[in-house]
Every structure is written in structure tokens, then in C-alpha cells.
């Protein structure tokens, strides 16, 4: 059974507000993360360790927000006994908050590269990191947008972007391996690079999971096993 998901139709106006606030809370969290990511890219491009440090310190805010969201979900489950779509929303919000918090941690990891002053002076690396970073920002934006509107089509489109990110990630890995081979004395420096490239890729995966929750939220079905290609075709066909 498929019905448009509506939050504002409960008899209890307070319950409506609580669910709205809950959904809004993860979007606020996502917005802050997006800003963190953009700042990280600026710090990488212009090599500003101070900015990277500030981004790392900001992560405490994200952690606190995740804690608040969890508390609120617990409170709503205990006091409201949400059922059906409301229950799915609460469960999804818990999972999204966890994923967002992890994205925050990955961003901190990326920033360590700049803070440690160990970033190798390499054209391809800078270009590669900015490329994957910008793709990640787009993916994050698309994912949060899909979640906010509970738009399955937007979720599939965002989901698909992760494949490009994986491709860029692999290319960066290969190039890094080449660099390590030719300059084995700098291996520690390049290992830091590997970690941060890996962090970018992980953020992509987290966003992908959030896109999958959009399906779960709307239909109650887990779309993980269904290929996105099939999904995309189906959704685009249905308009």
C-alpha cells in the first residue's frame, strides 16, 4: 500500500509538532555537516590549518545534536507509541542521525590531513581531493533534499552519484599507489592521504544508506537488495 506520507494529520496537534521537529532536526544536522564539508574543501584548497582545526572542533556540536535526536526519539517512542509511518519516521531519524554523526567523524579524519601539515605537494592529489569533495557535497545536498521531500526519485538519483564517487576514489587510490612506489620514503605522508581519501568514500556510502532509508520511510520496504538501475527505470517510467 502506498500513500503520501503526511505528518500533519494527527488529531493531536502537539504530536504533529513533535514529529515535524524531529524530521527538521536531522535536516539541521545535515545542513551543518554540509557546511563542515564545504569548509573542509576550502581548508584543503587554500591550505588553512586553522580552518581545518575549527571544523574538527565543530564536530562536538554534531555529536551533541545526535545525542539530542536520540533522546527525543526515545521520548517519542515511550510517550507516543508511534505506529506505522510514524514509527518508521522515528526509526529512520535515529538511523539517519547515526549516519550523519559518522559523516561528521569522517570529516574530522579528512581535516587531520591538513592539520598535520603532512599533505604532499602534488597537483593530481589536490585536484583529486577537490573533485571527490565537490561530488560529496553534491551528494550530501541531494540526499538531504530527497530525505526532506521524501522523494524516491531524488533518492535514486543521489544513490546513483555514489558510483561516480567510487570511480574517482579508485582512480585516486591507483595514483596514490603509484606515488608510493616512486617515493617510498614518503610512505607515511601518503598513508595519511589514503585515510582521508577513504573517508571521502565512506561519506558517499553513508549518504547512500540515507537514500535507502527514504524508500523504507515511504514504503516500509528495504530497497537495499533491489538494484538501483531497476529502481530508477521504474521511477522514471512512473514519472
Amino acid at each position, binding site marked *: 500500500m502506498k500513500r503520501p506520507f503526511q505528518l500533519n494529520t*494527527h*488529531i*493531536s*496537534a*502537539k*504530536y504533529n509538532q513533535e514529529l515535524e*521537529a*524531529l524530521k527538521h*532536526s536531522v535536516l*539541521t*544536522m545535515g545542513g551543518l555537516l554540509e557546511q563542515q564539508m564545504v569548509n573542509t574543501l576550502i581548508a584543503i584548497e587554500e591550505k588553512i590549518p586553522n580552518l581545518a582545526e575549527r571544523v574538527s572542533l565543530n564536530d562536538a*556540536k554534531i555529536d*551533541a*545534536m545526535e545525542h*539530542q*535526536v536520540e533522546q*527525543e526519539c*526515545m*521520548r517519542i517512542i*515511550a*510517550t*507516543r*507509541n508511534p505506529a506505522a509511518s510514524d514509527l518508521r519516521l522515528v526509526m529512520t531519524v535515529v538511523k539517519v542521525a547515526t549516519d550523519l554523526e559518522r559523516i561528521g567523524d569522517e570529516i574530522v579524519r579528512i581535516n587531520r590531513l591538513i592539520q598535520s601539515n603532512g599533505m604532499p605537494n602534488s597537483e593530481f592529489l589536490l585536484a583529486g581531493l577537490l573533485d571527490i569533495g565537490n561530488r560529496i557535497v553534491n551528494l550530501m545536498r541531494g540526499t538531504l533534499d530527497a530525505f526532506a521531500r521524501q522523494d524516491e526519485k531524488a533518492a535514486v538519483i543521489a544513490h546513483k552519484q555514489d558510483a561516480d564517487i567510487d570511480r574517482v576514489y579508485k582512480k585516486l587510490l591507483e595514483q596514490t599507489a603509484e606515488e608510493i612506489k616512486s617515493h617510498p620514503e614518503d610512505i607515511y605522508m601518503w598513508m595519511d592521504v589514503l585515510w582521508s581519501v577513504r573517508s571521502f568514500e565512506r561519506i558517499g556510502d553513508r549518504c547512500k544508506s540515507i537514500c535507502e532509508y527514504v524508500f523504507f520511510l515511504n514504503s516500509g520496504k528495504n530497497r537495499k537488495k533491489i538494484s538501483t538501475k531497476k529502481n530508477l527505470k521504474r521511477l522514471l517510467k512512473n514519472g
Partner: protein
Amino acid sequence: MLKLFEREVIAVDELSLSQTGIDVRDLSVELNDKRVLNEINIRIPKHKITALIGQSGCGKTTLLSSFNRMNELNRRHKTTGEVWINERNIYNKRENLAALRSRVGMVFQRPNPFPMSIYENVCFGLKIKGETSRRVLDDAVENALEQAALWSEVRDRLFDSALTLSGGQQQRLMIARALALSPQILLLDEPTSALDPLTTLHIEELINQLKKNCTIVIVTHNMQQAARVSDYAAFLHQGELIEFADSDSLFTLPAKQQTEDYITGRYG
């Protein structure tokens, strides 16, 4: 730090006197030589909804009815202690009981409309108080019915017998009857136990609206209802007040093991 959820909850032990609607001090009640309430001390917050929960026979209803001295309808009762409402101990010898009960309204488990018209039911209290002006009565009836979310359903048949209304409507009529007297405090004794879930939600929503003007105390067996509707909750067990806290804490992290056992269904 950014706060994602705006909620102002004052902890029960931080309630000031001006935030207290009913201040109960060392209240003990004996009915038929049996001690039903044992030295209860509780401060019911003003303009909030407080739920009393506990097993049958733990003293919830007795505590509720001691707030407007309804217990005294039982001849073999004995009450000691004080209940302060509006800086006045209602257990003083010169308290005007009729006036007290018009300030502290009560709605019972089963709707008990008088066998009169809907209109007469709502303005009954006002008439007893001596109000005769038709205009005042009309306004009061419309106001009370509107507040009780019943006006739109009965406006065309105000002079039909109240007994023709459905159970949910009758219960809302009872709330309207209590509201017509503009009470400061509204006591609800299981107001929805005989109603279907959706009507229950409507009445709960109504209760939530009413707290702007009234302090509300609700007795309920339905724990979920207590959790949904109340701002504060008190757990009673065998005449003792075990725990009193804001509902968010009581239903997510109760301080006492007994409360935890009760709300998680582990008792007995």
C-alpha cells in the same frame, strides 16, 4: 550549544509556589477505617496536566477527590493534612464547599448527564449559582461547548435531551458542564475509559487545549494515555506516593525501581 528541540520542563522539586496549582501537605485519608492515603506531599503544577497512575485501589481517585473535598460524601471518612489552593487551605472549617467545587470541577469515568436538555446540562451550575440573565447563560453555554469541541455538533439541537448524545459526546458535554463555571482546576477521573480510541484522542487534544486556562489532574489506568497527555506524572502504590516527576523523565528514566516495574508491566 544549539538546541534542536525546544521544551521547557521545570523539574518538580524546582517548582515555586506561584507555579503550584495545588499544594498537598501531609495528606492522609481514611475511608471506612482503612487508611487509603498515607501522608502524601505533592505540588501539582499550575496550568499543566498531571496524571496520577497506579494500580486499582492505590488511592488515585481518593487523592483526586480530596482536591475538592468530594471524599466527604462518604460519611466514614477521616482526612488529616492540608490541601492549599490559591494560598488557602481548603480543609478549613469555614470553607464554602459549593464555591470550592465550582472552582475545582470534576469529570467522572462514566458520563452522567442530567436527564435534561443539552443546554440545561451546561448551564445547570450557573443557574444554581444564581445566574438568571438569559444572555449570560447563552454566552456561557456556547463558550463552554466550544471549548469542549462540541459546539459544532450540537448547535442545532441544544434543546434535545442530553441522553440522545453518543458516549464521546456525552463525555465532552460533562467537560463543558464543568467548564461553564470557569474552574481553575479540572479533575478528570478516567475520562476516556469508556470511549473508543479516536474519541479518546479528541478528548486528549481537548484536555491539552484546556491547560491554557486550567490546572488539570487526570487519573488514568491507561499508562500510554498518561504518557501521551500529561506534562507531569505521579505514581501511587498502596496509598503512598512513590514517584512524582515530569512525564518525560518518569516514562523514560524513572528514579524508583517500583515505578520502572509498573510502567514496564513487571509488577506482581
